[in-house]
């Protein structure tokens, strides 16, 4: 109980800060003079981006600036769509060693938790949100983890407020993990596929016999009613299935399964995806992967290499970059390090334009939201970042970050700590006051 009241106090404090940060909604912003990257077309030097009432209304070199627009001079700056991190646990893991701040996994039933809606446990007051947003991450996928079928993922804007305010699309994908037999509750890779196939077959059966099921006139199923129901959009190909998997042979098995059941799948992690790049390209299966891991950390990832993302692109595979370096918590505390992944992807063979695409338009394509995100075009949401230079470089700062045309320049907890100890360099042995 005591802990809960502390959290409430913190929530109130954060909420108060948000209210102050909120600018007026109805307005026109004209970002002028910057090097504009629409992503859907070539860069425009000295371009203008107009955002009206939260939506982009014009992008180009010769754009008339509406009367009364708030002008932002971006001369010498780079202007991109807000970055999208396609694999995070933002808001569902606060302190990973503190159990009751971990909400990214469900117990499920027999390692299947298809009904689990991870966003319902999301904490919009997480102190992780502001650092991500301040560094140019405007949209994130929050992905459940664990078991065989982990649950449903959501796509969220990194805005303050409630989870309802944040949700862009939920569910945006179902998540399954097929790399580890033991966490799937089976003994081997082959048995894992049997279990997944049984779930898919039962879902198909359940789908056509709902009335009989409700009358208790069907055979037993491998999963609960809610899990089967949640799987229906997956077997109908309406909801993509993110399959977290590293070994090339497991990716191949996932492709066979997808063909057999006509599933729309996305490979997550995909350490050895480069070995089956042509098959992925032919099946039009996108891959979520990083560019900072070359550690053969287990027998499932012996082929892990930093060139993976670039090699997949060259083979024609759609790639969204995510954090996968293994350390440094790139799924929560360092969601912001997506730009470092993108820079390293370039260092390891990806074109710069492709790297930008991999953190903007490609994730929007994968999650079916190109009508709103991923590019600077008229009609899209006003998720726009003004960078002091090349966004992938360490010296570059995200100077202005707009989500739906608004800025939320919240001071992060990290900033507050830095300010406190920067101002008081000799406080040892004296009480720290603020």
């Amino acid at each position: 109980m005591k802990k809960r009241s502390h959290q409430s106090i913190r929530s109130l404090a954060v909420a108060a800060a948000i209210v102050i940060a909120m600018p007026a909604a109805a307005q026109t912003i004209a970002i002028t003079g910057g090097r504009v990257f629409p992503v859907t077309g070539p860069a425009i030097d000295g371009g203008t981006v107009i955002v009206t009432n939260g939506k982009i209304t014009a992008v180009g070199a010769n754009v008339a600036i509406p009367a009364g627009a708030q002008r932002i001079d971006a001369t010498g700056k780079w202007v991109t769509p807000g970055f999208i991190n396609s694999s995070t646990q933002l808001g569902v893991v606060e302190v990973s060693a503190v159990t009751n701040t971990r909400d990214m996994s469900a117990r499920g039933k027999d390692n299947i938790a298809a009904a689990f809606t991870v966003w319902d446990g999301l904490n919009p007051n997480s102190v992780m949100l502001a650092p991500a947003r301040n560094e140019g991450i405007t949209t994130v996928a929050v992905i459940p983890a664990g078991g065989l079928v982990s649950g449903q993922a959501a796509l969220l804007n990194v805005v303050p407020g409630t989870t309802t305010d944040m949700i862009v699309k939920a569910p945006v994908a179902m998540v399954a993990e097929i790399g580890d037999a033991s966490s799937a509750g089976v003994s081997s890779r082959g048995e894992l596929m049997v279990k997944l196939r049984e779930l898919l077959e039962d879902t198909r059966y359940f789908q056509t016999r709902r009335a009989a099921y409700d009358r208790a006139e069907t055979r037993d199923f491998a999963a609960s009613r809610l899990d089967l129901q949640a799987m229906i959009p997956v077997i109908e190909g309406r909801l993509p299935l993110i399959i977290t998997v590293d070994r090339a042979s497991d990716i191949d098995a996932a492709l066979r399964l997808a063909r057999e059941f006509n599933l729309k799948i996305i490979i997550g992690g995909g350490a050895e995806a480069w070995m089956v790049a042509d098959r992925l390209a032919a099946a039009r299966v996108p891959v979520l992967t990083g560019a900072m891991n070359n550690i053969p950390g287990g027998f499932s990832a012996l082929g892990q290499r930093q060139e993976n993302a670039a090699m997949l692109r060259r083979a024609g595979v759609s790639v969204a970059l995510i954090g996968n370096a293994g350390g440094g918590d790139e799924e929560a505390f360092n969601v912001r390090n997506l730009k470092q992944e993108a820079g390293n992807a370039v260092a390891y063979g990806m074109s710069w334009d492709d790297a930008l695409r991999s953190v903007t338009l490609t994730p929007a394509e994968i999650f079916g939201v190109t009508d709103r995100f991923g590019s600077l075009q008229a009609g899209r949401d006003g998720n726009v970042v003004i960078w002091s230079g090349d966004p992938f470089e360490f010296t570059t700062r995200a100077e202005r970050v707009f989500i739906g045309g608004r800025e939320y320049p919240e001071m992060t907890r990290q900033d507050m700590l830095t300010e406190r100890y920067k101002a008081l360099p000799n406080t040892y042995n004296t009480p720290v006051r603020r």
Partner: protein
Amino acid sequence: MRALVCMVLVGTMACASRPVPSTNTPPRARSDSTGGVGLGAASFPNADPFPSSYVPFPARPTVIRGVNIFTAAGPLIRNGAILLQNGKITAVGQSVDVPAGAVVIEGAGKYVTPGIIDNHSHLGVYPSPGGNALSDGNESTNPTTPHVWAEHSVWPQDPQFPRNLAGGVTTLQVLPGSANLIGGRSVVLKVVPSRTVQGMKFPGARYGMKMACGENPKRVYAGRGPATRMGNVAGYRAAWIGAEAYRRRWDKWNADRKGDPPARDLGNETLAEVLRGNIFIHNHCYRADEMAQMIDISKEFGYKIRSFHHGVEAYKLADLLAREGISGSLWSDWGSFKMEALDAVRANLALVDRAGARAIVHSDDPSGSQRLTQEAAKAMAAGNAAGIPVTEEQAIKWVTINPAWTIGLDDRIGSLEAGKNADVVLWSGNPFSVYSRPEKVWIDGALLYDRFDPAQQWRTDFELGFVPFARNQ
């Protein structure tokens, strides 16, 4: 140094029980570059039972010119040159003489730095592929295990080693894990192919000893104790009390050599060497308040902490670290994964550096270790953003000369100056850029990695057949 410690201390009991300074310590042999007695193990009877057998690889005199050189000992030399000869740096400056037969590398626009040094590695003791069979980093059978030595766990065929070398890392301190209050001895390795760990050991490097504060020991030993932070502190102090008595017995016997020597105890041998100042303390510790307590314990028993590792709250007592001459081996931006890591800030290194304490970027991670200049770049940018100016010349020290100091090798490695070991990295561009990669890496003047020459890319025994490609294509 110890006298100063006494003056600072309030309690006289602590001073009375303080070990007498180095007069009691037997003379220490200093090894040459091809092995011999390690500094840290020179006190009888435990002289150097596992001596280095490292022999430098064949090297040709090499000139790298037309490059921008971060020396870690002064300002960036633009369009400069460096000469490597007989395993040493013999000249560095705007230009150097080219000896007959020297390999000349024209590095137009590229950058040269000292070999990168990672003072917090678990390569070899937590190798890849992971799993119980090769998990040899934590002797978590007892909270106090000063008797174990990390080198006895190192697997020289760990495929993480060649990846580290390709990341520009030339020297590693491999530490035991942080499960224990006292985790055992570290070992300093050159990142070179070898059939044995002895063949990787840095000749003459002294040993370090790992200690750990806070959550890890109390979590691992919750059932048998220590289960609390106060239990942790009691555990350290109990160990030092026993070690001090042991050191006195042995130092006395070493001085008069009368009668049978006292019984040996492996753990106390290591602890006694710490008390004699021959082994450096590397103390895993996150929180500022705990670091302050560890400093008090070090004063109670008369040893020095060489570096706090992880130190996510080092910025909160950077002034104290500076005053005590203790360095901070830190991450650029790891945090929040447990309560004691909650207050991580990216300006940590900049704040510690500004206060006058040595700041080090360490990795504790086989991936991060390959990109220590990128990590330094993030920490530098965070400092600059917070109004604490950090230059690239400062930041390069965080991954070179400063970590060299923490392992007592700053007289031999860590900067590009005439007379120092020729551990050198040629980068494709500014090492603080996300787009730059090491192209060539020399250790003791020998070219051991070349990004564009597969024949110069070490592959471990393990990788043969299992990892079916050459890296860096």
